[in-house]
């Protein structure tokens, strides 16, 4: 079953097409990888899907319903949520307060305070942050700040989670743990799209990969197909 369908999505910044005519579909329950060189338009594509940017052309369908043009907070409440490349946590709030915010405002329907607190506790335990429960989120290490973002996103009870470079800047052990976490999220029934530069992670956990370059989709396939594709190797290694 398709959960997300993107058709001819295009965004211009000035005269430059940051994303141009991108089509993609995401099946429920899969982990889709999104790769490409810097400036390929990956984050812009995320911004267009999550409603932060309004596309110049094309449309985004989530669960069969058109969501392009809706405000980000509406998109979030419909069950599509994202994390950020550069951690966007609320630094002065505690970890719990950060996650509670997602549970309170991101839920599809208005949720009671007590229930929201339970949801937040669940997400904190799920991401292994219980030890940092009451610390200001800004005082955590990078890897834990990224987990706070994931926990906050999970607390909104999403059906589709978009992870933007969750593993950038992590050491190999931390990357391993992050991969584990992504798989557990998928196993809990949440569909995932992830932008990632850490190839090991992408090749290991994604069922399918899409490659972007200069705003266009240039390849799509299983990890094996992508890693042997001539066009992809040319783009990454040059000639």
């Amino acid at each position: 079953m398709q959960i997300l369908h993107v058709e001819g999505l295009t965004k211009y910044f000035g005269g430059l097409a940051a994303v141009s005519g991108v089509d993609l579909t995401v099946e429920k329950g899969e982990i889709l990888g999104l790769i490409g060189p810097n400036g390929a338009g990956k984050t812009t594509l995320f911004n267009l899907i999550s409603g932060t940017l309004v596309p110049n052309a094309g449309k985004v369908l989530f669960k069969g319903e058109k969501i392009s043009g809706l405000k980000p907070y509406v998109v979030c409440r419909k069950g599509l949520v994202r994390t950020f490349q550069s951690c966007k946590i609320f630094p002065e709030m505690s970890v719990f307060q950060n996650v509670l915010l997602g549970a309170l405002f991101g839920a599809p329907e208005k949720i009671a305070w007590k229930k929201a607190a339970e949801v937040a506790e669940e997400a904190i335990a799920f991401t292994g942050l219980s030890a940092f429960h009451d610390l200001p989120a800004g005082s955590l290490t990078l890897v834990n700040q990224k987990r706070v973002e994931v926990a906050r996103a999970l607390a909104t009870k999403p059906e589709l989670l978009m992870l933007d470079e969750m593993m950038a800047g992590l050491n190999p052990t931390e990357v391993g743990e992050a991969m584990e976490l992504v798989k557990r999220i998928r196993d809990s029934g949440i569909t995932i799209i992830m932008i990632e530069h850490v190839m090991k992670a992408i090749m290991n956990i994604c069922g399918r990969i899409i490659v972007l370059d200069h705003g266009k989709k240039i390849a799509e396939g299983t990890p094996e197909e992508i890693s042997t594709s001539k066009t992809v190797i040319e783009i990454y290694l040059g000639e």
Partner: protein
Amino acid sequence: MIAFINVLVNGLLLGGIYAITAMGLSLQYGVARILNIAHGEFIMVGAFLTFVLHTKLGINPLFGLAVAGPALFVVGYLIQRILFKTLKDRTPTPAAFEGSSMLMAFGILFMVQSIAIFIWGTNVQGYSYLAYSVYLGDIRFSVNRLVILVISVLICLLFYLFLTRTRAGKAIRAASQDPDAAGLMGVDINKMLALCFAFGAMMAGFAGMLISMVFPIYTTMGMQYTIIAIIVVVLGGLGSIPGSLIGGFLLGIFGAIVSAKDPGLNMAAYYLLFMVLLLVKPSGLFGR
């Protein structure tokens, strides 16, 4: 010694007004990113509303809490939604919005002030309410200033609880720390910005009502209070409610000490403090 304690008490009693004035501006600038130069005009309107209700209709000035505050809340909400929201949608970057929103606030200042002059003229007005003193030993407390202190501390406290304990308060704090992330986590940012501006205007209404109880009022009084609010906000740290409270009291005491020497030096001393502060600690006492 007694004289000094009297000065100190006076300062504390005034500090409450300063704190509320600053809290309003802090919300508008710290969260909604609008440096509302017209803040003092909202205060003036709050003061005149209270004055008119009291002198023309004989309504207790304290009732102004139920009139001036809510009335300005509505006005603030509409101004943000109609003017500043439109402006924000048309400015390309947040930095550009800060500049143009300040210019728009200047426009509002002149419009509100001119309308007020048209209605109420330029004479200095005032009324007296609870204008007598009680003594504790040798220390003198004027009753109206005591009432002001209690009310302003209560307002600060209630607002602090609102920000920390309620859904909307939580959304406002999130929006002030990172508006984009808050939006993507399901917070309706535009509504929160309008609410912040409206709460700021409501604080101005409260401050105006309190000011009218102890000071003469006039239609061009606004700028003086805008300046005081800016100084307190810088003193306490932008966006910090406890900072506004403590900063307000500090400036109140400082003002009272200067006034005891020569009341005419008051504003000059405030500016001096402001300059020193910007040079030495621009992030404020409690700023990030």
